[in-house]
């Protein structure tokens, strides 16, 4: 629990996510207060995944897409670029796979 200064006094403050832990397990709240926050590898990766999802969620805040901001020409350019990037990626993968297959045959 952190403290914030209000009217020259230190007042204990609690974040919404800390308070939400009360709905998970009260014993966990007490242990985390005593020992600090410990996370398993699985929990850490879940936290990272959640942060990534939140960043994306924030980028998407203005609705359907960025199409409105780009305009017609910008949107067309974006689509063309995406198309070529996709095909370039596909060709690269296929070439690599064919090379690998040829090497396998030689061996």
């Amino acid at each position, binding site marked *: *629990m952190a403290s*914030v200064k*209000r009217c020259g006094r230190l*007042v*204990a*403050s*609690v*974040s*919404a*996510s*800390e*308070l*939400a*832990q*009360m*709905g*998970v*397990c*009260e*014993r*966990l*709240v*007490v*242990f*985390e*207060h005593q*020992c600090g926050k*410990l*996370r*398993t590898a*699985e*929990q850490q990766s*879940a936290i990272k*995944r*959640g942060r990534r*999802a*939140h960043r*994306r*969620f*924030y980028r*998407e*805040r*203005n*609705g*359907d*897409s*960025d199409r409105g901001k780009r305009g017609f020409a910008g949107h067309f350019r974006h689509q063309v670029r*995406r198309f070529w990037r*996709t095909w370039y*990626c*596909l060709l690269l*993968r*296929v070439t690599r*796979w*064919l090379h690998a*297959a040829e090497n396998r045959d030689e061996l």
Partner: protein
Amino acid sequence: MNFEAAALARIAEFVAALWRQKWSSPPAKATKSLPQELRGVRLIYAERLFGSPSPVVITARVDRVYRNATGKLVLVELKTREANRPYWSDVIELSAQRFALCGQTGEAMADHAYILTERPDGRPTGSHRVRLIAPADLIALATRRQELLAGMNDPKQADFRGVCRKCVFVRLCNLPWPRLGQSIK
């Protein structure tokens, strides 16, 4: 011939994967997952930190806040999880967010909020409308938390066994229920 067939199959598989990942635009997914009440309404806040004044100081970072047709602010929270359902902790978190936002801005808030769930791979699974708890109950919960941390009360155990399975403190936690304690290793 076999080699060519395998190559074609691999290409088809890859194109299908690209179609799924790149050509289904994520922004459209986000809008589709919004509940009917919030489609086409104005977004007021996104990723903003709020703090309520005394008696209990609660700080909260909101994911999104929309103004609905009746002029009230509605909270939206994104959750990444396998299960397509809200938890009690989500309700507490959103209630705390409402308390903090209302305390700082003084605006009228709706007594419900939405939780958007998506799977760990980013696929949206649905939106859930939840009823938020009253400010008095939230203050009581914050007070109980302070009492627990001060050692004035005994903490209760988790209601679900799944919580204990994933908990790092499971060995430290001397579970009072032998049946539950024995099942968790």
